[in-house]
Each structure stands twice: as structure tokens, then as C-alpha cells.
């Protein structure tokens, strides 16, 4: 643990020099959900009220906050799945992908088919996918069972498959929702290491978590979200201290 911490401190210093170009700019963003329970009952819910920050290439941002703070909504905004009701999210041409994709899996199909399907859904051309296929399979550690139906996979194997696809395909910005959990302990270790590798390299990562240790370990900038508002952002230790003071 201690070693990892020093490593991340070094990392942060190293990254500071390298901080690259602006990829996504989030400006005074607000998202309001209208939940129609029935024709007569309407419920207004402000998931995000006023959120602003920038994402630069090469940095890894940790978004911390309690359940219902608006973390997941923020992720869907960054990935371009929804648009804000107020403010704007400007993407300067970066491809964004959520890590640990599993939703599109078709149970009757083989892991291999599902891999291609997910990759195509992410917008990668089939040719590129076929080149990367072996790499994804070997990273996932699924081995010979890749041609078995996903139905027969354990929850951990499914998670590994989803993780490996996004990992190998290398989008400009990788969104990681730690609250989703990835596979068994061994693979979690492996994926944490892979993440660390990515963070060391040029990979831009936005990591969502309610665990401050993960963010301290992996990120070089933190954003604390509370009830749809950015309470603090900037240097990891400062933000996390403020968060822990409030929450614990």
C-alpha cells in the first residue's frame, strides 16, 4: 500500500509536466430528470445542478461522492450519451468509452462474438477489431472458453471480458465506474495494475468512486461531487481531506 502511494505521488509530479491539450470542457452543467410515475404524478429531480471542470489529455481525474451525488449522470454526460439541460459539455474530438461494458452481451453467443459486437457498438471498424482480437482474449485470461456461450460464464468472466474490450481498444478517454466492480479479486488486482499502467502512459482516465483510497492511489486530480454540485476540485489530497471531513 505504502509503495503504491509513493508511486502515485511520483506519478502526479510526472504528469504535471505533461498535462496535455484540452479534451472535454464541462461548463455549468445541470441535468434534470422528469420522472413520470403516471400521467398525474410528475417528479422533478435535479441530478446535477452546477458542475464545471475540464479534462486534459494524459490526466486521471477521480470523481468522488456519495450515492446519489450525480456521479453516474456525470459519466453519461462525458460519454456523450445524454445532453445537459443547462450549460454545455464541449468535446474537442475525443473518443470516450465506459470501461466494464457488459450491457450489450448476448447470452447465447460466444465470448468472441460478443467481443466483436461490443467493439462495433463502440464504433470501431471490424478490421481493426479483428487485428486486436487475440490481444483482448489473452488479456481477459478467458483462454479456450472464449468460444463458449457467454451464458456459461461466471460473473467474473463476464466482467473480465467487458473490461478487456475497452482496455485494449484504447479510447481517448476511459471512464471507469468503480462502483460497478470488476470481477474477482485476482482480476481486480490485474485491472488495477492495468489501470495504473494506463495512467502512467498517455491514457486519460475519469474514475468514479466512493472510496477515497482508490482515488488517492490512482488519480492526479480529484473532483468532489455532492448533490449535483462540485464541492471541491483540484489537488487530490486537499479534496479528499475535505471530503473525508464531511463524510466520515
Amino acid at each position, binding site marked *: 500500500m505504502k509503495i503504491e502511494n509513493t508511486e502515485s505521488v511520483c506519478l502526479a509530479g510526472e504528469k504535471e509536466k505533461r498535462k496535455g491539450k484540452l479534451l472535454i470542457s464541462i461548463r455549468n452543467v445541470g441535468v434534470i430528470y422528469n420522472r413520470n410515475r403516471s400521467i398525474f404524478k410528475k417528479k422533478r429531480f435535479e441530478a446535477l445542478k452546477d458542475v464545471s471542470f475540464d479534462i486534459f489529455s494524459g490526466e486521471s481525474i477521480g470523481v468522488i461522492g456519495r450515492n446519489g451525488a450525480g456521479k453516474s449522470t456525470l459519466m*453519461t454526460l462525458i460519454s456523450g450519451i445524454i445532453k445537459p439541460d443547462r450549460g454545455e459539455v464541449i468535446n474537442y474530438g475525443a473518443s470516450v468509452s465506459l470501461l466494464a461494458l457488459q450491457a450489450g452481451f448476448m447470452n447465447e453467443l460466444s465470448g468472441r462474438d460478443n467481443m466483436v459486437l461490443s467493439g462495433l457498438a463502440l464504433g470501431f471498424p471490424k478490421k481493426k477489431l479483428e487485428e486486436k482480437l487475440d490481444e483482448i482474449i489473452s488479456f481477459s485470461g478467458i483462454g479456450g472458453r472464449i468460444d463458449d456461450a457467454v451464458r456459461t460464464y461466471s460473473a467474473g468472466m463476464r466482467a473480465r471480458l467487458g473490461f478487456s474490450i475497452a482496455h485494449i481498444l484504447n479510447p481517448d478517454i476511459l471512464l471507469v465506474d468503480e462502483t460497478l466492480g470488476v470481477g474477482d479479486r485476482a482480476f481486480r488486482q490485474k485491472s488495477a495494475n492495468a489501470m495504473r499502467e494506463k495512467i502512467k502512459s498517455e491514457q486519460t482516465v475519469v474514475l468514479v468512486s466512493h472510496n477515497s483510497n482508490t482515488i488517492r492511489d490512482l488519480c492526479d486530480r480529484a473532483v468532489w461531487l455532492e448533490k449535483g454540485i462540485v464541492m471541491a476540485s483540484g489537488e487530490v489530497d486537499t479534496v479528499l481531506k475535505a471530503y473525508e471531513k464531511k463524510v466520515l
Partner: protein
Amino acid sequence: MGLWNYREYILYSVRAKLLSETIRNHLGILWMVLEPIMRMFVYYFVFVYLIHRRTEDFTSFLLIGIIAFTWFSKTLTQGGNSISASGRLIKQLYLPKIIFPTITSLVRTIEFLVVFLTLLIYLATQGYLSVSWTALPGVIFAQFLFIYGITLVMACIIPFIPDISYIISSLMTALFFLSGILFEVKPSNPKYDLFMLNPLAKLLEQYRLIILQGSFPEWLSLVYIGGSGVVMALVVSQIIKKLEFQLPRIV
């Protein structure tokens, strides 16, 4: 158009859906053909043995109706729910939503073509083959456009008003009886014109004209039916495009 950029995903999904539907069962693809035959036997039993009512060529008459109607009803029921059913996926990544009803329509069309071709081969051996059969692609194309258009409409409405999917299943039962699958409505019938306002009834009539009677279809009706599908598809695809970022929030 969004669809073109995602053609590889669409084609792979169509293949994947067909595969996963067929490998689940022991008889696999055979079920596509067996299912309508089994239904035909049920209706045949009821109509011929129980209430002693039959039209000429009753088995062929029934099979054509069942197969063409099932194409419509299955596509509409599944395709109408397709955007809602993809909720988990479209909350995780951006995909043009029109993709989902399109995939369902293509899957069900391929199923229809397999079953229909089998039927045609059978009927050809029974001596029905005639030059009028060359007009069949026209009827099939008109029906495809109609189905696609109306499926897009439903797929766009159901995420906002999920209750509609219940109405659809009742509507399908009504349409099943109102499209002349089990009985023939002849032009001499005083209600004929009213009955034929239903595009499905008109389409089934055209199939039977071509296959069983060896005559050519009413091209103008086919143009109307296909054209209405094109209009629906064009309008609704624009609406779906406008709702692109709204849909992931509500499904």
C-alpha cells in the same frame, strides 16, 4: 444517415440475433418453418373438422396468411419494444436509436424469407408455379416498407408511453381476425371495400392472387402501402434523431 455509419454493427447484430435464436433450441432453424405449420394445423383442425368451413386450397390459403401476418406481428411487437429493451446498452454508450428497430425488422424479414421460400418450394411442387410469381418481390417489398415504417413509429412512442405495448398485443389479435387469414372476403361481399382499407388484408389478398390464382397484383395498392411505409419511416427517423439524447434518460 446514422444507419450507414453503423452498418457493420447492424449486420453483425442481425447475424448474432438469428444465431442466438436458433442455437438455443435443438431443432434450431427448423423451428422457423415448423412454427407456422403447427399453427396451420390448429386452424385447419378447427375450421375443417369442427365447423366444416373451408375455402378452396385451404391449407395453402392458411399458410400464406399465417406466414405473411406473423412477419408483421412479430416485427411490430418486438421492434416496438426494441428501444426500451436496449435501455441498459444505450445508457452505457452512444448508439443512434433507430438502429434497434432496424435490426429487429431485418431479423424478422430474414426469418420470413426463409419460411416463405420454403412454402413457395412446396407450392411449386404442388403445381401452383406460374409466371405471376415474378411479381412476388414487389409485394414483399411493399410489405417490408410498411412494416418498417410502422415499427419505427411504435419504437419511438413506446419508451414514452410504455402502456402502448399492451394495446399492441390486443390490436394484433384484432388484426389477426380482420386481415382475412382464416377466411376469404370476396369482392362480391358488400363490406369488401371497407375490409380492404386494412393494408394487411390487401397485402394478403395480393399474395394469394399471385400464388394461388396465378394473376398479377394490384400495383397501385402496393405503391400506396409501400409509400405509406416510406413516409412513416422518413418522418419518424427525423423524430428519433431529435430524441437521440432524450431517450437514454427515460428508458
